[in-house]
């Protein structure tokens, strides 16, 4: 006789009536309940996977892939290839906390900071998010434009494609539908791995001990920019807001934390492999010293890759940029919408209709619309925007990370799921590393620009 593995006592308190959002979530949770009850492990993983993979692959976005490819083009595989897995371990540590806090409290990051620590900190956090999201969204449309430029399509198509995707995914009124569509798109992030294979890297040379130099040569400013943007390519404020809110919207509970960890780890693993693909593909341009990147505004990167490694490599890389930008437009717009709804104290769920959650849906479309308007400006410095979007995210990230750390350590809120001591020790190192990376670039480049120090 099979018995439910972990029966939960029925609570005394009963609500008067379920809302439309409750009903939709109940349907999803019923399937999870049945899968758990009948010990269908793979089905359970399938049902509970989503927020972690989306956060990680969403962050393998246009600017991130540009940052990885730029690292490869300017410095080769040295330093950055071994660094990449470490950065995604760091991302896993941060995102696991988001998932756990969301599953325990059933609330998003923005609303928890606002209610637990006061309006000032809540609005500061929301301000950071809106700023970095808008800049990053511009960069996402830039990457779509760069990808499309390879196929001789202009910025109008990029805008139309991005906005059409946002509108289409929002049309279902269900979290599950939105999540599955975006997950399906996100798997095409693997195009960067195909691009890496197509450039035929010399893996023997790359794997030799001599290939892994400690710190690459080049100007300090450029190195710090690439380091800060690479750190910003793995963890950003929107990921924190997104994964916690999405975990709550999906209906995850404390019983799902183990699967939430699998989901986040799988996302981190896939993102690291695909990110390494972009790095290896970019390294094919190393013999040219990365000089081709200056032509980026006109779609120079895929074009240059096409010249060096063949048309197929260029085309796949261009398609990858379109996918990376499109998925990130969806996830970053969603994180903006969650934060807007949470700060305004109104309904914020994909399990509602636009009529019920007008702020949520308006913020979702509005953020994408605003960002898309910027890329049609002629002569915009596209590569600079793409790289600096990640740098700005890195600089602003420590505040969000500190609040996440405080929430995960809040025993009153988290109960037995509070952070353990080893997790705290690692989290402190991560926060310090992120803070120093951003500050080093910000202060260093400022001093150089003002000629207070040499390059």
């Amino acid at each position, binding site marked *: 006789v099979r018995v*439910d593995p972990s029966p939960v006592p029925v609570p005394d308190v*009963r609500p008067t009536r379920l809302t439309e959002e409750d009903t939709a*979530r109940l349907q999803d949770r*019923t399937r999870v309940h049945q899968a758990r009850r009948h010990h269908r492990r793979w089905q359970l993983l399938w049902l509970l996977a989503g927020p972690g993979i989306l956060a990680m692959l969403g962050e393998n976005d246009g600017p991130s892939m540009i940052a990885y490819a730029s690292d490869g083009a300017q410095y080769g595989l040295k330093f950055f290839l071994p660094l990449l897995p470490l950065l995604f371990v760091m991302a896993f540590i941060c995102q696991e906390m988001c998932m756990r806090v969301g599953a325990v409290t059933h609330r998003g990051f923005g609303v928890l900071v606002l209610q637990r*620590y006061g309006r000032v900190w809540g609005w500061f956090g929301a301000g950071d998010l809106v700023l970095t999201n808008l800049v990053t969204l511009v960069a996402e449309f830039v990457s779509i434009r760069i990808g499309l430029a390879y196929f001789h399509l202009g910025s109008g198509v990029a805008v139309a494609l991005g906005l059409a995707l946002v509108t289409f995914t929002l049309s279902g009124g269900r979290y599950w539908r939105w999540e599955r569509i975006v997950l399906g798109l996100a798997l095409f992030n693997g195009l960067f791995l195909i691009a890496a294979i197509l450039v035929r890297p010399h893996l023997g040379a790359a794997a030799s001990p001599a290939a892994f130099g400690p710190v690459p040569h080049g100007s300090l400013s450029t190195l710090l920019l690439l380091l800060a943007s690479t750190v910003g390519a793995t963890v950003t404020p929107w990921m924190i807001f997104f994964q916690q809110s999405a975990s709550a919207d999906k209906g995850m509970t404390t019983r799902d934390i183990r699967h939430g960890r699998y989901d986040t780890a799988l996302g981190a693993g896939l993102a690291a492999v695909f990110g390494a693909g972009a790095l290896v593909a970019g390294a094919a341009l190393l013999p040219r010293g990365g000089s081709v990147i200056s032509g980026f505004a006109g779609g120079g990167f895929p074009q240059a890759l096409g010249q060096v490694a063949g048309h197929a490599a260029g085309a796949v890389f261009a398609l990858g940029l379109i996918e990376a930008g499109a998925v990130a437009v969806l996830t970053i717009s969603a994180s903006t919408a969650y934060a807007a709804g949470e700060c305004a104290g109104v309904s914020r769920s994909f399990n509602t209709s636009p009529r019920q959650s007008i702020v949520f849906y308006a913020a979702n479309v509005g953020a994408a619309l605003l960002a898309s308007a910027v890329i049609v400006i002629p002569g915009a410095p596209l590569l600079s925007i793409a790289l600096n979007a990640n740098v700005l995210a890195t600089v602003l990230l420590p*505040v969000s990370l500190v609040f996440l750390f405080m929430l995960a350590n809040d025993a009153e809120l988290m109960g037995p799921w509070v952070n353990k001591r080893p997790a705290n020790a690692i989290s402190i190192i991560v926060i310090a590393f992120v803070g120093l990376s951003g500050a080093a670039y910000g202060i260093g480049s400022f001093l150089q620009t003002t000629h207070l120090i040499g390059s």
Partner: protein
Amino acid sequence: MAPDDHDPGWPGLALGNGLALEHGQLVAETARPVPRTTLTARARTGLWLLRVVVVLVSLMVVWTFIQQLR
């Protein structure tokens, strides 16, 4: 009540001997604010210090970005 034939209007959420939706997940519950916590003076100072540093470095990044465009 079987898991598949739930009634949206039914007030309880028990399915078999487990739950499909926890009480704390309901919209009516999540709409209730969590109690505010009191930060120690040291924590408040630390947070403000971090906030000021972050704003200053952000301004430096934006300024450098604008200068590099020229």
